[in-house]
Each structure stands twice: as C-alpha cells, then as structure tokens.
C-alpha cells in the first residue's frame, strides 16, 4: 500500500531569461518573468515545478545566475533541463538548490552519459526527458527541440535510461503540446509494465478531468501541464492556475 500521491507539475519554458509558451514546439508567446511565476506557484503550493531552458543547448549557455535566484525563491521541489551535457555542471546546478536535472540532447548524442551523471548527482536527481512523436506506426524520439529525428528505438531507450541509473523518465508528446486535447495514454501503457522508476507524462492537458483520469488509471504518476495552467480563454490571456488535489 502506498499513500504517495501523483505529482501535478507545471512546466515552464524559459528563453533568454523570460518565460514563453509554445504550441507543438512553435508559435512562442511571452508569459512573464520566471521569479514572478515561481512566487505565484509558491502561493498555489504546487507539487513540483519544472523549468526547461529551450535555447540553452543551442546557445551553449546555462543561466546559473537566474537559476540561483529561482531556486532561492522556490518553496517547492524543482527540476531543470536545458543545455546540461556535463556532469560537473549538473552538480553545480544541484548545489544551487535545484533537486533534479533533466537531460535530452545529451542522452540522445551519448546514451552512456546517464551513467556518469547519476554516479555524480545520484539516481534521485537524474532525469531524462524524451521528446516523442507518434508517426503512424511507431514512436520516434526527437532532439534539438523536436526538429531532428533520432534513430533510437523508443522502448529500448526507456529501458536503457532506467538501467543506466536515471531516477525519473519524462515523456513529452510534441504534437500534443499546447493542443489541450488530452494525454496520450497508449504511450504510458507501452512503458508502464517494465518501468521501476517514476514516470512523468506531458503534452495535451486541457482540463482537470484529463488529470483526474490519468491519476485514476496510472497513479502514482507525474502529470506535466503547460498551456492549461498558463492561459485562459480563446485569446490565451496569461492567467496562472493550478489543480486542486481531491484529498484536500
């Protein structure tokens, strides 16, 4: 028996020090200042918070100063992803007070990196995020913000990530991002049986009932939410919101 609750996780995208929100990895829209949004999420007592710097990899620059200010403000656990391809840098970010480091490109270019990373910062802090597309007959893993298809096999990669010491797997469905059309539960079914590490799924959340049904079927699971917690109405006005856990 376990009383462990599913984690409902706002996902923030950072670019050049500001927060943006994209749809299917395109159409960037400015959302606000990261410190302000973290303060709002403190008040809302969110389970965890995820920040991806989506241009850190391309720019070859991780904004440690900003991460330090964010970590100091955050009263919830944080995960950071973007431009981390070096285990020493990862350790430095952890020392700022960020609990978990996510890698994507660094895993795809060098799958062995996960072992080195987890040995340095610990399994509990090592996360791999896979950006994935359903391509009619199979799931493909993409790198460089969804622009370049890798030749990695999806299921084999998930097994490999777990065996090499990652403590969490995040699966992000590129074509559902910002669509509000609901989560892809089929991809969860593909990995759920062999995963012994926590899984987080993101892409497509458009209502509380999407979250509720995911929890009902797969708890405990991490539920990543972007657009639905950031925008309201058809004009996509910025209005930061969160989910209310049933037990409260």
């Amino acid at each position: 028996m376990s009383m462990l609750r599913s984690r409902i996780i706002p996902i923030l995208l950072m670019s050049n020090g500001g927060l943006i929100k994209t749809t299917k990895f395109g159409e960037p829209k400015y959302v606000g200042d990261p410190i302000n949004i973290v303060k709002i999420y403190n008040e809302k007592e969110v389970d965890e918070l995820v920040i991806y710097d989506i241009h850190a990899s391309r720019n070859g620059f991780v904004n440690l100063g900003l991460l330090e200010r964010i970590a100091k403000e955050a009263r919830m656990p944080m995960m950071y992803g973007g431009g981390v391809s070096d285990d020493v840098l990862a350790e430095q970010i952890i020392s700022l007070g960020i609990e978990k480091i996510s890698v994507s490109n660094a895993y795809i270019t060098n799958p062995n990196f996960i072992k080195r990373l987890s040995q340095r910062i610990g399994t509990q802090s090592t996360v791999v995020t896979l950006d994935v597309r359903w391509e009619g007959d199979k799931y493909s893993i993409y790198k460089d913000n969804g622009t370049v298809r890798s030749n990695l096999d999806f299921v084999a990669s998930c097994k490999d990530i777990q065996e090499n010491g990652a403590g969490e797997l995040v699966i992000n469905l590129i074509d559902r991002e910002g669509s509000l059309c609901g989560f892809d539960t089929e991809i969860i079914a593909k990995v759920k049986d062999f995963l012994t590490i926590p899984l987080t799924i993101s892409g497509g959340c458009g209502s509380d009932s999407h979250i509720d049904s995911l929890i009902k079927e797969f708890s405990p699971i991490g539920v990543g939410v972007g657009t639905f917690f950031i925008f309201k109405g058809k004009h996509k006005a910025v209005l930061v919101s969160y989910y209310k856990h049933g037990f409260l």
Partner: protein
Amino acid sequence: MIVIVDYGSGNISAIGQILNRLGVSWVASKNLSDIDAADRYILPGVGHYKKTVDTLQNSGIKDALTRNILEDGKYLLGICVGMQILSFSSEEGDGVGLGLVNGSVRKINKNPMAQNLLCPHMGWNSLSIDDINRDLASGLLDGVDLKKGFYFLHSYYFDAPAENVIARTTYGFNMPCIVTNQKNIFGVQFHPEKSHLNGVRVIENFTKLK
C-alpha cells in the same frame, strides 16, 4: 544563532530563505568556531551517504558537531541525507555514519513490502505519528497538516528501532521518516525546505524546541 552546516551540499539557500522569513538569525558555515558558537544546527543533504560522512569527518565538522550536540545538548535537525547520516551505517557505499541515532540505512526496494513500488520514492506523502514519541512529535509537528504531508525524494530509508521513530510514511510499509535520539537530535527524511507551509512550520518548530 543557527548554523546551516555547509559542506558543499545543496538547498542551503532555500533553508536560509525560510529562516529569513521567520526572522531567525543563521549562517551557512563549515568553520569550527561558528559551529562552537551556534546554539543549534541544520544539516542539509543531497547526495551520497559515504561521500557526505567522509567530508564531515575529514573537515573536523563531525567531531565539533558531536561534541556540541552530545556534551552541550544543542539541537540538531538533519534533512534527507543529512538525516540518514545520523545512523550507524548504510547500504549505500558501505558507509559508516555519525552514530547519533540508532539504526541503519537501507535501500527502499530491497524491503519485500516495497519491492514492487517505484524507486526512488518521489513526491508528496502523508505522515502518521508513532504513539511512543507523541510528546516529541507535538513539538516538531505543531500546526502541520499530516495528511498533506511532505515532499520526498530518496532511494534509501532510515531503518530505526521503534523508540527512535517519531513519524512514518506509508510506502509499501510504514517507513520511518522522522527519527530522534529522544532528546535533542532530529532527522527528517523529507525536504521541509521544499514542502511549502508544512515545511516552514517544521523548521519554525525546530527553532523553538527546548
């Protein structure tokens, strides 16, 4: 004054930020003179058991802390790995701990009741208080919503005798998550600095223990 023991581990700034809000004076330090001057300690921890203990041992912090805690009765709060190293030993890297609280640290999924559960234990979980230490619990957990609980992120747990357990969380089995020497030493497996108002309350309560 509180010393947050700074031996290169994370989360010092988040703990410090909470102490600032509470108006409690603190310093993050590894200087032995600061440790002697402090009236209580917070031992944070993210990372590896053996590495953490070795660092404390080699820097002389271990001896200074032990002396102040055991001889002068100063209060200590260990967090996560900072809690685990209060034990005598760990399965993580065959480490030998500070030996301040009875018990040893084991891998969660080696416990038969948790072997089919996900590891690490990651997320928010509820707490229940052990009757045997209800008095100690009332000090540390005053005003805390036990059902809401705290944020956990760990693959190992502190296996302590019943008399050293203040509270447990349920993860396949009733896993100790607050331990004590029943006097002035407390360890919490969860991250109070990352557990919103519940966490703030635990840290505030700790600063007022006497």
